[in-house]
């Protein structure tokens, strides 16, 4: 499977994603510069963390206007798999590919620690390899990761089974209903604050993050077989 990793000026988890996808998961991965009009021949797109364009104005607010986002929207609209992590999640929300917004952490401080996540659904291309009763240990590192949406939107997200992950135990940032990751209406776009790409290698902690990518690989394999 071939992933494309978008690089904005200020992205800083791009290297980590490329390394995890190629070295830990044995997949192909290509860099996509933010000024590209085309995504290339990729099966899925990874929007990495960092501080795109300095996060001036508001996290992800400037990145949404970059040329690559136009092609990303076309890709998502046609059913392509897109995962946005941390700043990537913020960008996908700003671009309107996902519901809700990410605001300042409740205690106003940046927080970096490993948290427990429980899958909100196994019925998605990003969570099918998770186990319902076993939390994933995955790091977070953000200052603006409090997921926020109005009650109607939250109710709708839950009614449509679009909560991908919830924080288990301590909610580290005040996110509404403990939501750590959400799916788009088409279920092919995932945004999550925790960093699965940081949890793919036992030398640096957990390998629980591979469940997200293994789910994507399985989903891509199915759609390829279907097309073939």
């Amino acid at each position, binding site marked *: 499977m071939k992933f494309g990793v978008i690089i904005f*000026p*200020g992205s*800083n*988890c791009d*290297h*980590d994603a490329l*390394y*995890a996808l190629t070295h830990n998961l044995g997949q192909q991965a290509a860099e996509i510069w933010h000024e590209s009009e085309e995504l290339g021949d990729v099966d899925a797109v990874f929007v990495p963390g*960092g*501080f795109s*364009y*300095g*996060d*001036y104005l508001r996290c992800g607010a400037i990145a949404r206007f970059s040329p690559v986002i136009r092609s990303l929207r076309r890709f998502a609209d046609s059913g392509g798999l897109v995962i946005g992590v941390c700043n990537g999640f913020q960008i996908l929300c700003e671009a309107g590919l996902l519901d809700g917004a990410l605001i300042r952490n409740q205690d106003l*401080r*940046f*927080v*970096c*620690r490993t948290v427990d996540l429980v899958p909100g659904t196994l019925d998605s291309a990003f969570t099918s390899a998770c186990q319902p009763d076993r939390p994933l240990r995955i*790091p977070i*590192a953000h*200052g603006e990761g409090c997921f926020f949406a109005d009650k109607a939107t939250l109710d709708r997200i839950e009614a449509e089974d679009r909560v991908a992950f919830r924080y288990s135990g301590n909610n580290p940032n005040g996110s509404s209903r403990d939501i750590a990751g959400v799916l788009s209406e088409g279920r092919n776009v995932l945004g999550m604050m925790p*960093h699965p*790409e*940081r949890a*793919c*290698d*036992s*030398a*640096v*902690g957990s390998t629980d993050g591979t469940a997200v990518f293994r789910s994507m690989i399985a989903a891509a394999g199915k759609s390829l077989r279907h097309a073939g």
Partner: protein
Amino acid sequence: MQAEVDERTAAEHGLTAEEYRRITDRIGRVPTLTELGILSVMWSEHCSYKSSRLHLKKLPTRGERILVGPGENAGIVDIGGGWAAAFKIESHNHPSYIEPFQGAATGVGGILRDIFTMGARPVAVLDALRFGPPDDPENGAANRRIIRGVVEGIAHYGNCIGVPTIGGECSFDPCFSANPLVNVFALGVFRQDSIFLGSAKGLGNPVIYVGAKTGRDGIQGASMASAEFDEDSEAKRPNVQVGDPFLEKLLLEACLEAMRTGAILGIQDMGAAGLTCSTAEMGGRGGVGIEIELDRVPQRESGMTPYEIMLSESQERMLLVAERGREGEVLAVFRKWGLDAVEIGTVTSDRLLRVKHGGSVVAELDTGFLSDDAPLYDRPHSEPRRTAPLDGPVLSEPSAADLLAGIEALLASPELNSKRWIWEQYDHQVRTNTTSGPGADAAVIRIKEASVSLAMSLDGNSRYCALDPRLGTQLIVAECCRNLATVGATPIAATNNLNFGNPEKPEIMAQLVESIEGMAEACRHFGTPITGGNVSLYNETLGEGIDPAPVLGIVGMLEHMAAPIGTCFTHAGDLVVLLGGLLPDCQGDELPRRFGSSQYAKTLLGQTWGLPPTLNLEHEAGVHEATRSIVRQNLAHSAHDVGSGGLAVALAECCFGPEPIGATIAFDTNQPLLCAMFHECPSRVLLSLPRANIGEVVAIAASLHVPLVELGHTGGSTLTFGLNSTTRMEAPVARLRRIWESSFEASLEAQ
């Protein structure tokens, strides 16, 4: 432009009458105001090391792994396989007092530029912080504001640029209330054949300015950092630079990419004294002249004078020399990253720094005169300043309740409580290399490119150095190397940050000299040459100097990429062993005097006295060797250095793993119990290991003549002590841990 320059103007720039005479003698005329500004920063303590240079020469700087030693932007060591690591520590003390957030943030930015200027990609940051106590009855509120600001500033810059902050240390004393210390260490990795130096060469080659526009911020920052604080220091706020980590991230990526074109011949960041220092030093190192045209310098505001442009310390700027004819390739890379890159001058043959503005020459000075001929002082030094008495109160024999109260008070003290509140604000995991992060004895990252790991330890101890700067500094070097040994690493090189008061006072100068000499001896002993560093003097406010606070950053190597063992107990039923012996340094009545330097004396008895613990360098090295050997053979489950707070605190800390595990400890001693529990004699490492391994561990210790004491075993939910079969004490681990974990945040929230 030709404002009157005389001795008085020179004095306002911090130059002495003698220094001013030296200038007029040498150039044969009265300097222009711009020239005076240039000379004043180049000859400031911060840039010229005029008080310390003579003594810094005593430090060892050579070793088989040293590729580049002191004098460049950072030291460089060989880490094998054709790879190298560049590292250095730098202070941003004065700016961090005046404006904590920006002062600390730009401290991170500055040291990162020193690293990538050489072509290395920064992969780790550590910081050594010293503040006034957050619970200080007099200055608590101000101290808390500084602590919050500094931590937020470091987090802001490091997190944004994507370099993990993986460790460091944080210490408190009232002497730092009006003079906090912010020392930032950074390390980067690159190929040995891609090292870039800050040297200009090739007549006619273009001198290119890259990065942020020049503004009026930070003018005379280097001079500010070379003076004491007084009531007017608040007015110096405009002297503090403002940082933009996003711009620096672009600069980092663009510089590394531009270097790969092969068209860059020399490059230097604009740090202290900005354009002045970078042009003078690049010309001086290359033995050439540099001519620049200030009208071409990108400027943030209009109407800036040559004086202001030359002395601005605006952040995120670099100066480079490219090969004539290939400058287009370099400029194209910076354009791709959306950065200003402008040719502002050329390399000349006359060894002169010539500065033009509006068509006329506003400064013309010999580059060698500016850097190499800076004044060098052999300042008088007497006995080191010392305010503490030699002898302290008579120590009464403690009850079990006293001992327990002591442990709890120490675990709650700002000095020893958990700093999770600080390091959770730093992204310590980005780049997915951190195999041992904050909170451990040593930070470790794997270097994927070279299939090795690098361990780093940052340490200082002003409590010891105030009592004996020579021994205190040796103890710091020993502790750094011991920390590295606990993860199995061999120390290879060091960097130092010398934070002291006013060197013009003989008793302060003596502290500096003693400290450097102690450092030299210890670094020679442990095979850790000093590859560079930073000297921060004049850390005084209203005539009151800080305690001497040298900080060491030592780098060690591991020949694998696996995560090392941690400091905490991991298995119930393991043996608890103390490598190095119970109180190896205690003879006769020395002990009560040495105990006066302990954290126990300071926290529980409210005073310090006497001398630091004794250190036997041979014995210490043996403990390191034994520890490394045991750790490398995977014989232990955990290894923890016994440091501040002594054995009792170290044992408690071992219980605070992710899955807390208690221990049952028993020993007999003929020394005072207080000392056995809380004295801080060095050369000791606590190990936990499976019973089956004890034979091998004992054999390793014996072969290196290192004493070893079996203290007990792990397990249960309490930390239990049985001492001399008479004193028994039991502390629930959960309670100790709660005290340790919550005290720091609670002290920051105090009103």
